[in-house]
């Protein structure tokens, strides 16, 4: 029964939650042996659709046909047995067990009396890994592997469980560029074996590289499916967003003021060395480089989250000593850190409390908080940044990624910084929200702030920056002005060539 063209057909799937109509008659057709990209803004319904596919939700309207036959999962196990596997964005594995043990978790080769056949376990693991061209010692503990290696184990696991469809959710958000190449190689191999991949990602350039077809969802409805070949990125975006997005990056004719930040000889043993640069008022300086090149570490030291071993920092010509975030804030530096969930927000607190996290002095007298003043300040921030939230008391964890990021930005802006540092400002954020944040960053620079943007997304850093500093293994590899900025140029410097 191997003669089906479409390994998966989801037809007219609808699902509601109390008060929310998450999916309205959505269809998805995936051909055998292809990479099918699933796209859409956050909240479009991708996640709900996938949860139905993997059996997490068993109540829904519509039909699912898998390998030509109608199926109805009774749960996650039944979906797995049928041949559907999912590799979540946050990988699920047991850190203290080895790669081999994780690979065959629940499926271990047994000997008599229920004992695990250790030898066979390792042998089989080696085989599975070899099949996807991955080289690592299956006896290593998962916690000692890199994110990318752990991902490989999950892929090997899915294949060894005879999956016909593997769903990958934002697979490249936490791995380096070289590892992305490896992943794409493996995806290519997997395709050859006749396995299909549903690829969920916000990264357009990756989708163009790896996918054969794409499907767009918007607001819980099916917008369309098209082949990648011949597809136009602007059309893709307008399918996702429902409107034409004129240039993602706003045009700038910037006017630069005097030097605001001056960094000389900043060094941290083993992390970065002799970093020197200036940022003028009204300027957007981008910092690019491969993962591990020291970008985040440098800006963390400027802000005071970490301390450098040596070097000078001057703000508006004045030498300053910054030993803590409090010093940084006091000196007019604001940092929107890399990981909003662990560093920027207290997820269980409300939008209001998060916005005010570093700004309580603005609404309190003698250590006592004025609830009324607080509300006023927060409401203004919500309005100014167009943060989408039902109320200011909504817990931060319930907002979408883009709006969570806006909370952090709002918090930082209330400190009235002259120097604004943004580290990966649009990570995990959909296209519509990205565009809003780019407009915001540009506006802030136009208003005279000195802006530093650290980013791994080349189109983003090239589109935003007036100048790009490229780091390579902790050292300044070069500087690229906007007029000369191309992906090749930046990447070449980033690789140290």
């Amino acid at each position, binding site marked *: 029964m191997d003669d089906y063209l479409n390994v998966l057909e989801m037809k007219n799937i609808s699902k509601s*939650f*109390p*008060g*929310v109509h*998450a999916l309205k008659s959505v269809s998805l057709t995936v051909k055998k042996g292809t990479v099918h990209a699933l796209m859409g803004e*956050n*909240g479009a319904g*991708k*996640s*709900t659709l996938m949860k139905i596919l993997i059996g997490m939700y068993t109540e829904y309207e519509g039909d699912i046909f898998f390998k030509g036959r109608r199926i109805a999962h009774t749960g996650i196990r039944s979906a797995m047995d049928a041949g559907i596997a999912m590799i979540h*964005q*946050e990988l699920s594995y047991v850190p203290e067990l080895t790669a081999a043990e994780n690979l065959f978790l629940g499926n271990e080769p047994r000997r008599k009396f229920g004992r695990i056949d250790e030898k066979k376990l390792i042998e089989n693991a080696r085989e599975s890994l070899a099949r996807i061209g991955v080289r690592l010692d299956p006896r290593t503990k998962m916690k000692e592997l890199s994110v990318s290696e752990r991902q490989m184990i999950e892929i090997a696991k899915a294949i060894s469980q005879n999956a016909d469809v593997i769903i990958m959710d*934002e697979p490249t958000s936490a791995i380096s560029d070289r590892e992305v190449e490896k992943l794409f190689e493996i995806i290519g191999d997997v395709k050859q074996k006749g396995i299909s991949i549903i690829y969920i990602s916000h990264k357009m350039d990756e989708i163009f590289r790896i996918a054969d077809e794409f499907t767009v969802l918007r607001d819980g409805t099916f917008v369309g499916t098209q082949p990648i070949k011949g597809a136009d990125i602007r059309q893709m975006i307008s399918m996702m967003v429902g409107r034409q997005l004129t240039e993602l990056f706003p045009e700038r004719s910037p006017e630069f003021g005097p030097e605001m930040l001056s960094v000389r000889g900043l060094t941290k043993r083993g992390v970065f060395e002799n970093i020197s640069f200036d940022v003028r008022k009204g300027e957007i300086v981008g910092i690019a480089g491969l993962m591990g090149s020291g970008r985040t570490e440098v800006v963390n030291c400027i802000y005071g*989250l970490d301390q450098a071993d040596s070097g000078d920092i001057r703000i508006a010509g004045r030498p300053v000593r910054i030993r*803590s*975030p*409090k010093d*940084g*804030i006091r000196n007019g530096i604001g*940092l929107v*850190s890399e990981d909003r*969930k*662990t*560093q*920027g*927000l*207290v*997820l*269980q*607190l409300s939008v209001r*409390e998060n916005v*005010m*996290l*570093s700004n*309580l*002095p603005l609404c*309190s007298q003698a*250590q*006592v*908080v004025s609830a009324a003043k607080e509300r006023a300040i927060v409401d203004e921030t919500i309005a100014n940044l167009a943060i989408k939230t039902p109320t200011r008391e909504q817990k931060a*964890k*319930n*907002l*979408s*990624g883009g*709006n969570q990021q806006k909370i952090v930005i709002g*918090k930082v802006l209330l400190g009235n910084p002259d120097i604004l540092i943004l580290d990966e400002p649009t990570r*995990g954020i959909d296209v519509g929200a990205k565009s809003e944040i780019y407009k915001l960053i540009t506006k802030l620079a136009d208003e005279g702030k000195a802006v530093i943007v650290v980013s791994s997304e080349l189109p983003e850093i090239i589109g935003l920056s007036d100048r790009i500093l490229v780091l390579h293994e902790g050292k300044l590899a070069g500087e690229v002005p906007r007029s000369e900025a191309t992906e090749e140029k930046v990447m070449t410097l980033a690789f140290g060539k």
Partner: protein
Amino acid sequence: MNAMSQTIAEPNAKTGTTRFGGEFFRKYGLFMALIILCAVFSFLSPVFLTERNLLNVLNQVSINAILAIGVTFVILIGGIDLGLGSYVALTGCLAAMLAESGDGFLLPVAAGVAGGLLIGWINGVTITRGKLAPFIVTLGMMTAARGAALVISDGRPISRLSPSFNAIGGTFLGVQIPVLIVLAVFLIALFVLHKTVFGRYIYAVGGNEEAARTSGINVNRIKMYVYVICGGLAGVAGIVQAARIETGQPNIGTGYELDAIAAVVIGGTSLSGGSGRLMGTLIGALIIGVINNGLDLLNVPSYYQQIIKGLIIVGALLIDRKS
């Protein structure tokens, strides 16, 4: 600490039709539990609902309530303090020593509270600068403080205390002073937690220490203060205890920390920090007090009482997990 790892804002399946049920239960469920307990006991024992008995309950609960309020602060930042019972003994003996001679009450009270603050300060420094786990540090302090109490009292109870000191365990305008002290402590703590910058920072540090630090909050300082407050309130509890039995008793207080932490947990404060209400702690302490009192009135042997109490605590945690 508890960063949720969903990047896509999904409609929360728990909202909507269950919203009314969930919120209502969370806000009033605890109070309802207390009412139901009182109803049950008043049905089983004719004595329970008398004025004398209820005032008795309040009085008995007061020491635990003070300790529970203090340790709520610590638990809110994700810490713990296991030494509360020993602190009660040590501060009680300190106060008693000074109340032995003469008729003062200010000096003994000051000594007791100061002793508690000092204990809290030592805990705080060891935990923040020494970077040691609160569990271990306060476990050690539990033993050390008990030892110190035995040392300064020479192992013997200190009695014959000044009448003005003993009066702390008495009444004022018909209301028991310990109950008034609990009320005062509760109101001040409520104000601090909900109306001050410091209080907000406590929730921030407990909710996500890293985010708090990145936002410029002095995390170590907040942690320090919280342990000092807990110690200081333990000092207050120690004074009330000593005044109540009119003795500085070095062996008193064994197991007090468990009752205090149980009150906090039953009250809905999460042991991992960042969420919880002081009102919950108070009701939790009342629930424990009512159970103790009710079971006493019904002549249930004390060993059985312990089993029942243990089951109720676990039950409370299960309910909390489900909601």
